[in-house]
């Protein structure tokens, strides 16, 4: 058995382990025989642990070979004419550490959630969505073609939406989930269009045909024009998942979901999915200065916005959401500056810290209340911040802006959403009138059987 065969086997294990748990728990649930809590937790946790172990083995194998990338061709998914969707995966210096980190984190959150959601009505649903997320994450991280990456990306979006709306009985959760899904869906246009452009440019979605060399020193294999177009589309796609201004409004609302999912999605993995895709295609960005410029502007703008707005939040999860957004913006700017390893280290370290903070947040609040009760008031003066150096009027102006979340939601709502919905409502009203005219005064709609 060659080293390539070993890597192929391990990569397959990485993907198959969480996917198998999805089947093991999902099929009985679909057939009306939902498994017990302990079984669900162990099976899903076992899948992640197996994936993590496979990742560590893969890391050892790759390290022994000087981190030379291995491309694993699992075959062709389907093909029509020149359009072929291949199942290609890649194990290299970017994907293997990342997949170890993501599956390890999923395993830890799985263990935490087993206790946290004990006897919660949606226990099985949560773990199914976690398994779907883990499968999608592994697929996206190990993707060796843009088709596979898109498949993983979509799984992330769907699992994220359904977990934000996990507490279906809460109106806010439903609204937040729809808001997030709409943002994802619109920004996914970027990745979908990028995939089509790549297919047109090189005849397949394989990354091998887009860029060569070892990460992070790859070289672009397509003309500059193609690289610029694809990079800009990828930046647009990444904006949605990573909550960049002006489409960041969904992130604080997304904290309506259960704490474990908030930790892993919006503190750790999902929020950095965009950064990962950009790092994967760093060779294209190297050739595309407009995309790099866009990343710097978007990143710094988002970091500033989130930093200011986050300071006036009155609940811990919203504060942490804005803190995540700040770091995500900085990571975008770092990628735009042409750095590779620094943003990767930043992503991993931030993800670990933030997910711990979010997981700790319910008990941290409890501890804080106990501390204040014991001390009989607020423990000490407010910490010093650079904002206190500003004149009071400027501070007040910033405060007002921060309270209104930088007017971002208001601007997007008034300029984009409201006119669009007004137009649709008007069209729907005209349709109803026309139907009433065609079908008689009452219009169709009464028949039910």
């Amino acid at each position: 058995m060659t080293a390539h065969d070993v890597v192929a086997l391990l990569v397959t294990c990485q993907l198959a382990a969480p996917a198998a748990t999805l089947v093991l728990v999902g099929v009985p649930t679909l057939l009306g025989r939902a498994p017990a809590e302990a079984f669900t937790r162990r099976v899903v946790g076992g899948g992640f642990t197996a994936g993590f172990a496979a990742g560590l083995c893969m890391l050892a194998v790759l390290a022994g070979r000087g981190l030379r990338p291995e491309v694993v061709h699992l075959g062709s998914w389907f093909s029509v004419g020149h359009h072929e969707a291949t199942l290609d995966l890649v194990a290299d210096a970017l994907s293997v550490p990342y997949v170890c980190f993501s599956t390890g984190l999923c395993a830890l959150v799985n263990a935490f959630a087993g206790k946290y959601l004990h006897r919660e009505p949606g226990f099985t649903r949560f773990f199914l969505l976690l398994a779907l997320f883990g499968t999608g994450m592994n697929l996206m991280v190990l993707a060796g073609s843009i088709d596979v990456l898109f498949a993983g990306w979509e799984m992330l979006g769907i699992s994220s939406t359904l977990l934000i709306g996990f507490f279906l009985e809460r109106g806010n959760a439903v609204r937040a989930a729809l808001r997030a899904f709409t943002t994802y869906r619109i920004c996914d246009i970027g990745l979908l269009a990028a995939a089509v452009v790549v297919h047109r440019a090189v005849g397949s979605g394989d990354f091998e045909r887009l860029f060569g060399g070892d990460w992070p020193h790859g070289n672009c294999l397509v003309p500059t024009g193609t690289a610029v177009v694809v990079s800009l589309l990828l930046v647009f796609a990444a904006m949605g998942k990573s909550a960049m201004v002006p489409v960041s409004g969904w992130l604080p609302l997304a904290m309506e979901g259960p704490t474990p999912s908030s930790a892993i999605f919006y503190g750790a993995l999902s929020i950095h999915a965009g950064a990962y895709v950009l790092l994967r295609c760093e060779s294209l960005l190297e050739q595309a200065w407009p995309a790099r410029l866009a990343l710097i502007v978007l990143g710094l703008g988002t970091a500033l916005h989130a930093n200011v707005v986050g300071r006036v939040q009155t609940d811990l999860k919203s504060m942490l959401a804005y803190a995540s957004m700040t770091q995500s913006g900085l990571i975008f700017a770092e990628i735009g500056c042409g750095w590779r390893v620094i943003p990767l280290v930043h992503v991993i370290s931030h993800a670990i810290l933030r997910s711990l903070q979010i997981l700790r947040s319910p008990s941290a609040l409890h501890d804080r209340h106990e501390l204040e009760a014991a001390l009989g008031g607020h423990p000490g003066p407010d910490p010093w911040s650079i904002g206190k150096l500003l004149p009071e009027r400027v501070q007040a102006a910033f405060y007002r802006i921060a309270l209104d979340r930088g007017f971002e939601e208001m601007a997007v709502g008034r300029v984009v959403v409201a006119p669009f919905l007004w137009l649709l409502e008007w069209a729907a009203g005209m349709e109803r009138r026309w139907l009433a005219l065609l079908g008689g005064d009452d219009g169709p709609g009464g028949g039910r059987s």
Partner: protein
Amino acid sequence: MTDSLLGAAAVTVAAPLAAAAVVAAGLGGGRPRRAAVAALTLSLVSSLALSLLWSRTDGMPLAAGDRLGGGALLLIDGITAVLLPYAAVVELAILLVAPRRSLDPAAVARLLVGTAATFALFLSSHPVVMIVLWVATALVTWISVRDTPGGRAAARTFAIAMATAVVCMAVGTVLLVVDPPWATAAGWVGATGGWLVALAVMIRKGIFPFHSWYPALFAGAPMSTALSATMPQVAAYTAVRLLIGHVDHPEGVAAELVVLAELALVTAAYGAALAIVQRDLRSLIGTLAMSQSALVLAGLAGTLPMELAGALCVWVSSGLSLTGIGLVTWALESRAGSIGLDTPQGRFWDAPALAGFFLLFGLAGIGLPGTLSFVADDLIVSGTLDDHIYAGLLVIASTVLGGIATMRGWFHVFGGPLAADGPRHAILLRERVAFTGLLATLFVLGLWPDPLVRALDRAAGRLLGVAAAPSVAEPHAGPSATEPAVDLQVLPDGR
């Protein structure tokens, strides 16, 4: 092999007709569902056998019987081999899920006759047969809607649309036969005929601005009737047989179909956008169905086999997922009444299993990786973008908006606090069988799509490729832009 194919085709059509006769004569022992399910199971098995047999042939279409205007009385090809099992699965699922109170013998007999007519239509390309079967399928739908309490308005809307479509189709076909567009001396009569046939397809397919009957049917008719009338997409089939592969067009597509495709693209995006603001679940499904149906027609006008294959793939994937959504909605309505969308209805708490199935069908309709719709979206988006950038963007817009509308529908039906504290609604075995079967088909074809995609690609290539050959061998005498474009010649593939 030929005898086996013909035998399988005959069984597929005859089984529901025989069952309809049995049920109408009152011989079903008071249980019309059993006879109907048995007949449609037989149809499904025979249609699958036909597909299997077809896959073992060299791909040459089998045409037999009287020919008129290029169409054969009996035609079996790659399209037939895919559409027959698809239609059988849809109709069988409808029968399994239908609530008992809506399955009186007359309704079952109508459903079976309509199903047999649809099967027969998929086995023919003869213009006269198509007209007759258009009338038959429309008539059973109209009677069913008319007999539904409160359905008269929808019946009237449907009747206006279908009567116009059938008249256009009949007159157009006559004009084409009288003044064949492929003849050297072809004139305005044939041209008018071609455009009338295109208009008929447009109306029957619910293409803007003739789309209103589509959501009206879903809003006013029993779900079985609405799904049976729309999911097989008989007008798309007519377009495939009469408009694709026309020798006039340099790229093998009739000029009428190109115009239809432009309007279909607009309809696909418009329908998906409109679905976002619908106030009740049935209207949401109706507008989504209208959008998906238009998307199929838009892809059918493609000049690349990938576009055609993508359109056929969307035909099957959207049909199965929308059938699933429609049937879950019907099951839900039969337990808890009609469902509005203005505010979250909180149905999750009394029907969690139905919520799960609705979600899975919805995800299977919006491109969840691993389902057939992911493959279909990939093909149709890539194909249309390869062909025309603006077309691709409209297709992307319709898939994005359709996804948003679907998820809004799910969250508004199942999200929210429980309105009334009542008993949980269990799911019946026959419902679970139907839903699981539909889902399994969507997932199996999504995870292992290559055989289906290759079959569709081969069928699409043959449709386009056959058209190109005569245009090289026998260049058309007249200027194509001003002449009728519907090709009714006897072509090597039997069209």
